[in-house]
C-alpha cells in the first residue's frame, strides 16, 4: 500500500451512534485514499457525515454513544483503529493534526498564544522551553502573523477570527504532521480571509510536503485546491474522482445538482437552482438509493427505490454510486 505513496487509506469505514430513537448510521462504508502531498476534498451538505469521518480518523468519536462499527483506517500501513489509546495519543497532533471549524473558540482563553503553541511543540518534540518558544515564533511568522514576537504574549481574545485560525494552523503544523485534517477551516471566516487561509494551507502543503484532508461544503474551495474530491451524501460517498473530472464530467445526479446550483458568472438568473427536498435524517434514511426522493431520475424508478447502488469504478479513477451513471455496471 505504501508503494504508491498512500499516506492514509480508509477502508469501509462505518461509524454509528446509539440514540434513544435507534442507531444513527452517520458514516457507512466509506473508503478513500490520500497520497503523500495531495489534497482530498470531502464535500457534502451539513449532516452528511463529513466531520464524523474526520473524527473517526482521529479516533475522537465520543464513545458512548458513538462507535466505529466496521472498517479499517491505515495510516502509513498501520491500522490505527487497533492501536491502544496511549499510542494513538502519540499520533494525534504529531503525525495527524486537525484544524477545527470555529477559530473563535478553538483556543484556550486563559493561556497566551505562545503558551499554547509551545505546549503543542514540547509535547511531541524534545525541546527546551526556550527552543520551543523560538520555534513557535517561527511558526507564527510562517503563517504570516505580523509581529510574531509580540503576538506570542497575547491572549486569544485580542486576535481576529482569521488570526486565530492562523494560530490554529501554526499549532497544527508545528510538529510537521504528515496528514492535516482541516474540518471546514474557512467556514466561519470572511471571504477575503478564506482565500488567504487556503493560500496559506497550499503554501505550507508544498513546503512541508504534507497531505491534507479538506472537509468543506464549498465547491468553490474544492475547485481551486483539491487534487481529488469525494462527494458525500447521507453517510455514503456518492462520487469520487479527480477535481478536474468532477467539474467537467459529473456522473452522480447529486453532484450534478450541486454544480448546477452554483451561481454562474456572466449569466443573469433571478433565482439560484436548488436541489428539491431536504437532506434525510440519519435515523430515517429512505430505502434504496438514499438520494432517490430528490433525484430527477430516481424518484420514479423502481430499482432506485428498492436497491442501493454500491460505489463502483465507472471509468479510470472515477467512482460513482448511481444505477444510471454512465459506465456503471448493472
Amino acid at each position, binding site marked *: 500500500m505504501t508503494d504508491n505513496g498512500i499516506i492514509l487509506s480508509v477502508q469501509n469505514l462505518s461509524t454509528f451512534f446509539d440514540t434513544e430513537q435507534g442507531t444513527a448510521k452517520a458514516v457507512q462504508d466509506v473508503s478513500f485514499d490520500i497520497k503523500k502531498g495531495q489534497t482530498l476534498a470531502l464535500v457534502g451538505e451539513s449532516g452528511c457525515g463529513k466531520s464524523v469521518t474526520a473524527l473517526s480518523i*482521529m479516533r*475522537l468519536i465520543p464513545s*458512548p454513544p458513538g462507535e466505529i462499527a466496521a472498517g479499517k483506517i491505515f495510516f502509513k500501513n498501520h491500522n490505527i483503529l487497533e492501536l491502544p489509546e496511549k499510542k494513538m*495519543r*502519540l*499520533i*494525534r*497532533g*504529531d503525525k495527524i*493534526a*486537525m484544524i*477545527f*471549524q*470555529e477559530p473563535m*473558540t*478553538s*483556543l*484556550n*482563553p*486563559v493561556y*497566551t498564544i*505562545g503558551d499554547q503553541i509551545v*505546549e*503543542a511543540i514540547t*509535547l*511531541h518534540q524534545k525541546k527546551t*522551553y526556550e527552543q520551543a*518558544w523560538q520555534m513557535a515564533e517561527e511558526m507564527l511568522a510562517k503563517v504570516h502573523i505580523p509581529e510574531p*514576537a*509580540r503576538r*506570542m*504574549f*497575547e*491572549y486569544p*481574545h*485580542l486576535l481576529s477570527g482569521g488570526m486565530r485560525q492562523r494560530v*490554529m494552523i501554526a*499549532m497544527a503544523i508545528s510538529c510537521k504532521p504528515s496528514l492535516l485534517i482541516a474540518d471546514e477551516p474557512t467556514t466561519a471566516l470572511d471571504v477575503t480571509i478564506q482565500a488567504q487561509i487556503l493560500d496559506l494551507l497550499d503554501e505550507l502543503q508544498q513546503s512541508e510536503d504534507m497531505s491534507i484532508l479538506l472537509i468543506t461544503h464549498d465547491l468553490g474551495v474544492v475547485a481551486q485546491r483539491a487534487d481529488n474530491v469525494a462527494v458525500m451524501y447521507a453517510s455514503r460517498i456518492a462520487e469520487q474522482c479527480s477535481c478536474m473530472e468532477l467539474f467537467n464530467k459529473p456522473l452522480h445526479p447529486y453532484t450534478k445538482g450541486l454544480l448546477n446550483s452554483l451561481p454562474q458568472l456572466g449569466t443573469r438568473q433571478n433565482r439560484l437552482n436548488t436541489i428539491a427536498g431536504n437532506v434525510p435524517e440519519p435515523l430515517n434514511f429512505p430505502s434504496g438509493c438514499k438520494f432517490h426522493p430528490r433525484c430527477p431520475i430516481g424518484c420514479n424508478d423502481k430499482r432506485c427505490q428498492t436497491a442501493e447502488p454500491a460505489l463502483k469504478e465507472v471509468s479510470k479513477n472515477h467512482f460513482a454510486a448511481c444505477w444510471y451513471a454512465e459506465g456503471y455496471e448493472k
Partner: protein
Amino acid sequence: MNEINNKNWGTSYGQLVWQQFTRNRTNLFCLCFIMVLFTMAVFAPLIANDKPFVIRIENKLCFPLFSTLTANDYSVFLTAIIGITLLFLIRRNSLKVDPFLRSAVLWKQISICAVILLIGISLLQIFTPRKLDATDYNAMLADSKATDAIFPLVPYGYGRTDIKVSQQPPSREHWLGTDDVGSDVLCRLIHGTRVSLSVGFVAVGISSIIGIVFGAIMGYFGGKIDFLGMRLLEIMMSVPTFFLIITIVAFFPRSLFNIMVIIGITSWTDDARFIRAEFFKLRNQDFVQAAISLGLPLRSILFRHMLPNGVAPVLVSITFGVAGAIFIESALSFLGFGVAPPTPSWGQMLSTGVSTSGQFLWWLSLFPGTAIFFTVTAYNLLGEGLRDAIDPKLRKAV
C-alpha cells in the same frame, strides 16, 4: 524587544477579575481584615505572651520569649515571612516588561523559596531545643531580682490560671476581662485566631481538592462513571456532617487535625457538583476538542485546560466554605467537642460565658462572638465580591 509597549499586551483573565475585585472598597476592606487576622494568628506568641522579649536578670540580658517558642512556632513564622516575600516578588515581577522572563523568574523564585522553606523547617524541627519555662517573670520584677523587661503587647499567656483575677470585667490590666480561671480574654482571643483560621483553610483545602478531582472526572467522562459518582455523592450529602463529627470525636482523641479532616472529607460535595457542571459544559468546547486532538495527556486536559476555565464557581464556594468551617469548629468547641483546653478557640471561649457560675459574664461571650461574626462576615463578603468580579455580566468596561 524594547519597542514592545507594556500597555498593548492583553490582560489575562486573572488580571481582569482582580481589577474588578479591587474596584469594590468592601472587598478590599474584607481582604485587609483577613490579612490582619492572619498576621495575628501567625505572630500570636509575639503579641500575647507572659514571657518578656528582653529581661535583665542579675545584670545578664535574657530573651525568655524567644527561647520558649517551639519549633512549630518558628516554622509558622518562617512560612509566613517567605510567603509574604513571595507575594512582594510576584507583585514586582508583574510590573516587569517581558512576560516570558517574568514566568521564568517567577518559577525560579518560587522554587528557591520552597527549598529555603523546607530546609528551614527541617533545621528548626531538629535544632530548636524544647524548653519549658515556668518562671514567673512578673514576680521576679516585683522582687526586683530582674529589671528592664520588655513585655509583649498583651503580657499574659493563654494557659495561665490565676484564681485571684478570675471573672473580672474589662479593665486597664485586662482589656477584655478575664475568664473563670483567670486567663486574659484578649490573649486567648488572639491565640484562638490560629485555630479558627487553620480549620477554615485546611478543611476547605482538603474538601476542594477532593471535590475538584472527583467532579472533574465525573464531568469529563460522564456516562457510567458520572452515574456512580453522583450516587456516591448523594450518599455523602445525606450524611449529617455535624453529627458525624460529634460521633467521630467521641471515638477518637480530640484533636484539631481530626476536626479539619472530618470537615474536609464531608463537605466536598458542593465543589464536586460545581466542577462537574462546568466540565459538562466545557467538555464539548472546541478548545478542549482541539487539546485532545493535539494528543495532550488526560491530566493536562483536565487540570491545565479545563480547570482554569471552570474554577470560578468553586473559588466562590471555597470562600463561603472557609466561613462555614469556622462556624462548624466554633459550634463544636461551644458544645465541648472541639479542641482540647488549654488551647483556646473562639467557640470554646463563647461557652465559658454561661457555663460555670450561673451568672452571665457578658465579656466572655461578646468578644469571641464578635470575632466569629466579623470573620465569617468578612469571608462571606469576600466570596460575594469574588462572585461579582467573576461574573462577566456585572463587569464594567475597564
